[in-house]
C-alpha cells in the first residue's frame, strides 16, 4: 500500500432518524436522544415489534422531472447531496463546468424488491411496469448525476453494510488520480420490509433499542438515511479559494474469506483494512483521536471489532452511533464518516448510546459519556455481509 495524497472534503450532508441535517444529528447525538420505535411506514406480522430508527419526514424528490418518481433511497440521497452542496458553497451551475463523479453506496437502492408487484406477478395478475420503471430510474449514483446533469463516472457500490465507507474511499481515489475534479461520495438506504424480515430471520435483531458493545446486547435495530461528502481536487479548491473542512487521508478494504454473514473470529479482514488505511494515511495509533466503530450490537460483530480495535489501536477511545441512528446498511459508513468529521471539528465525541455494562468477553468499553478529544485524526470502520471490511482515516489537516 502506497502513501497517497489526501482528498479534501468541502461539504457534508447527512440525515437519519437522529436529524434531517448534520447539525440536527450532532445535536441529538450530544444530547443522548434516541428514537427507536416500531416501523410506521410498513406493517409486519411478526409477533414482536422490533424497533427501527425511521425518518418520518418525507424528503422531496429532485428538480429533474425524471426524478419525480424515484425510490425513497434516492430521495434520501438527494436530500443529503443538497445539504452537502450548500455547505460546500456550490450551486448546480458550478457543477456543470467540472468533471464531477458520483460514487454512492447502497443495499436496498439497487435491489428489485417491490412486494406488491411480485405478489401480483405470482398471482398471474400481469402487473403493470410502473414499479419496474421506478426501479430502473432509481440507481442511486445515476439519480444524482441526472439531477445535476453531471457527466463524470458513476458508481453504485453494493458492498452491503460497508458500501458507504467504500464509496468514500473510492471517490477519494478518483480525485487523487485526476479522474475527477470533484466527487459526490456517500451512501443512502431506506427501511423496507425485505431487510426488516431478513435481519429478523437471521436472529440478529434486538426487540428493544440496540446496545452496541454492551454485555447484554442482543442485536441490531435497522435505520435509514444518507450521508454525503463533497470531495474536491486541490486545483478546484485553489480556484474556488474554499477551505477544506477535512481530508480523506486513508482508505483500506479487505475481505475475511471466512463466512457469508459472520465476521472472521480473528478479525482478519478488518485488521487488513485498518492496516491499509493507516499506511495510506501515514498515521499511527498514537495519532488517532477516536474510532467511530461499526458497532452494530450483534454478538459476533462487536466481539470481533472490539478485539481488533483493542489490538491495533489500544487505548484509543471508540464508540458506535448505531444507538442513535440504527443500522442504515449501505448508508451507515457514509453517515458515520460525516459524524466523524463533525466530531473532529467540535473536539468532542458522543457517548455510545445503549451501553451500560462492560462485557468481560470484550474487555474494553466504548465511551459512555460525551468526551473531549484533542487530536485531529480519526478512524471510521465498517464490517459487512460477505465478510467484507472497510476503514477510512479522516483528519482536519492535510498531513
Amino acid at each position, binding site marked *: 500500500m502506497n502513501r497517497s495524497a489526501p482528498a479534501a472534503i468541502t461539504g457534508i450532508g447527512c440525515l437519519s432518524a437522529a436529524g434531517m441535517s448534520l447539525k440536527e444529528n450532532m445535536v441529538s447525538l450530544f444530547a443522548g436522544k434516541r428514537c427507536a420505535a416500531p416501523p410506521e411506514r410498513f406493517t409486519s406480522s411478526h409477533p414482536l415489534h422490533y424497533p427501527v430508527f425511521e425518518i418520518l419526514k418525507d424528503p422531496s424528490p429532485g428538480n429533474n422531472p425524471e426524478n419525480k418518481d424515484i425510490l425513497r433511497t434516492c430521495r434520501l440521497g438527494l436530500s443529503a447531496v443538497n445539504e452537502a452542496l450548500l455547505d460546500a458553497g456550490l450551486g448546480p451551475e458550478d457543477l456543470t463546468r467540472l468533471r464531477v463523479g458520483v460514487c454512492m453506496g447502497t443495499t436496498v437502492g439497487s435491489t428489485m424488491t417491490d412486494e406488491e408487484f411480485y405478489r401480483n406477478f405470482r398471482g398471474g395478475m400481469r402487473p403493470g411496469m410502473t414499479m419496474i420503471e421506478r426501479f430502473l430510474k432509481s440507481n442511486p449514483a445515476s439519480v444524482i448525476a441526472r439531477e445535476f446533469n453531471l457527466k463524470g463516472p458513476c458508481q453504485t*457500490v453494493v458492498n452491503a453494510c460497508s458500501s458507504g465507507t467504500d464509496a468514500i474511499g473510492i471517490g477519494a481515489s478518483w480525485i487523487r488520480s485526476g479522474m475527477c475534479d470533484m466527487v459526490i461520495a456517500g451512501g443512502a438506504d431506506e427501511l423496507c420490509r425485505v431487510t426488516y424480515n431478513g435481519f429478523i430471520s437471521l436472529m440478529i435483531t434486538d426487540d428493544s433499542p440496540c446496545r452496541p458493545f454492551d454485555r447484554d446486547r442482543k442485536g441490531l435495530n435497522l435505520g435509514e438515511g444518507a450521508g454525503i461528502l463533497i470531495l474536491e481536487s486541490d486545483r478546484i479548491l485553489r480556484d474556488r479559494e474554499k477551505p477544506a473542512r477535512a481530508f480523506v487521508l486513508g482508505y483500506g478494504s479487505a475481505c475475511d474469506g471466512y463466512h457469508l454473514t459472520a465476521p472472521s473470529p480473528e478479525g482478519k479482514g478488518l485488521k487488513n483494512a485498518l492496516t491499509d488505511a493507516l499506511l495510506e494515511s501515514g498515521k499511527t495509533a498514537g495519532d488517532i483521536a477516536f474510532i467511530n466503530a461499526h458497532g452494530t450490537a450483534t454478538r459476533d460483530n462487536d466481539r470481533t471489532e472490539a478485539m481488533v480495535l483493542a489490538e491495533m489501536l489500544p487505548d484509543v477511545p471508540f464508540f458506535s452511533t448505531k444507538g442513535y441512528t440504527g443500522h442504515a446498511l449501505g448508508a451507515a459508513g457514509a453517515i458515520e464518516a460525516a459524524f466523524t468529521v463533525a466530531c473532529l471539528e467540535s473536539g468532542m465525541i458522543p457517548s455510545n448510546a445503549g451501553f451500560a455494562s462492560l462485557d468481560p468477553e470484550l474487555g474494553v468499553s466504548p465511551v459512555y459519556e460525551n468526551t473531549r478529544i484533542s487530536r485531529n485524526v480519526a478512524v471510521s470502520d465498517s464490517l459487512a455481509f*460477505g465478510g467484507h471490511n472497510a476503514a477510512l482515516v479522516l483528519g482536519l489537516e492535510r498531513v
Partner: protein
Amino acid sequence: MRIHINGIGVVGGFGSGVKALLTCLEMGLPPLKVHDTGYGPAFLADTSPLEAFVRKKSLRRIDHFSQMAILGAHLALQDGGMPSMAAKRTGLIICSGYGASRTTFSFLDSVINDGDACASPTSFSNSVHNAAAGHLSILLKLGGPSLTVSQFEMSVPSALLSARQWLQEGRVDHVLFGAVDEYCDVVGYCWRSFFGEDDHCVMSPLSQDRESAIPGEGSVFFLLSKEKADTSKYGSVVDVRMGRLDGASVLSSEQTTFILGADGHKGCDRLYADFMPPGAESACYSPLYGSLPIGPAFDMAIAALCIREEKMFASPESVADQGKYNIIRKALPLTPGSITCLKVAKDYEFGIITVTTG
C-alpha cells in the same frame, strides 16, 4: 496505465470457457439451444462444469447467480495458469446489473408463502448483492480488497475503473474481475411487457425499427494484472471511460475498430450512430450471448480473443447495418490491433473499454 489481461473465464448460453465462445465466434452463430422460458426465448447458462472445480457438497447453499460467478472465476484462473492466488495481493471485483434476482424473489416467496416470521435466512443472505464476492473469497481464500458494483448497463466500465485504480495505486498486484447477471421469470415477464411478445429466436441489433433483444445470462471473469504474464496473448486494457455524451465527441479518429454493445433494444441501438467517428469499422456480437446488463464484459472478452487470434471475427449475419456502421461481415486481419468496446445506454450514457495488443 495498461491493465494486462492474463486470463479469461466465460459462461453463457453458448457454453462455458474461452473455447466455447471462440467456436461460437468462428461460426458466427448464436447458441444452438434457445430456452423457451414461458416468457419467450432466453440464452441460459449451465453451471454443471463447476463440479470440476468445487465439490458438489460445498455448493449446496450457493445459488445459481453465485455459481455462475464461481465457475467464471475458476475458468479465468485456470486460463491464466494461476489456480491459486496470493491471497492478500489479489483484489476481487464483481459487477452486476440486477444482482441475484432469482434469490431475491425466492426470499419474497418465503414471506408470501409462509408469513413474515418464516422468511428464509438463507435466501436473504444470498440475495445481498455482494454474496457472490463473499462466496468466492471464501472458496479462493482471498484476503485482499473486495468490491461489488451495480450500475445497470454501465456496471462493467464503472467497476473496471476501480480495478484500474487498485492496480495503479499498488493496492493489489492482481484483480479477479467479474461480471454476472442472471435470468429469472420476472426478467422474462418485464422483457415481454416492455418489448412485446415477438418470439423471435435471433437477435438483430442495430435495427432501427424492431425490438429483437433476447435475454441472456452468464458470467465473464478476467484475471487482470499490472504485469503481463509470459503466456498471455490477450493484450491489455488501455482506456476505460464512462460518462454522458454532451455534444463533444468522446472517440478519436485514431479509434477505427469497434465492438458495439447494441443488443436489440431499438431505443438505445439508434444512439450508437451519434458516437461513431467517420470511416470506423464495427462489429457486434450480442446475438451470441444475448441481451443483459453486463454485455460489455462479453465484448471485452471477445476483443481480447480478437487480439489473441490476430483477427476481427465476422459479425453474425443477423446484425443490421443501416449503412451507418460499416459492419464487419468477414473476418479481418488485426496485427497489431486496437479494439474499442462501446456501450451506449439511455440518455446517451456511454462506457468505453479499449483493448490493444501488448
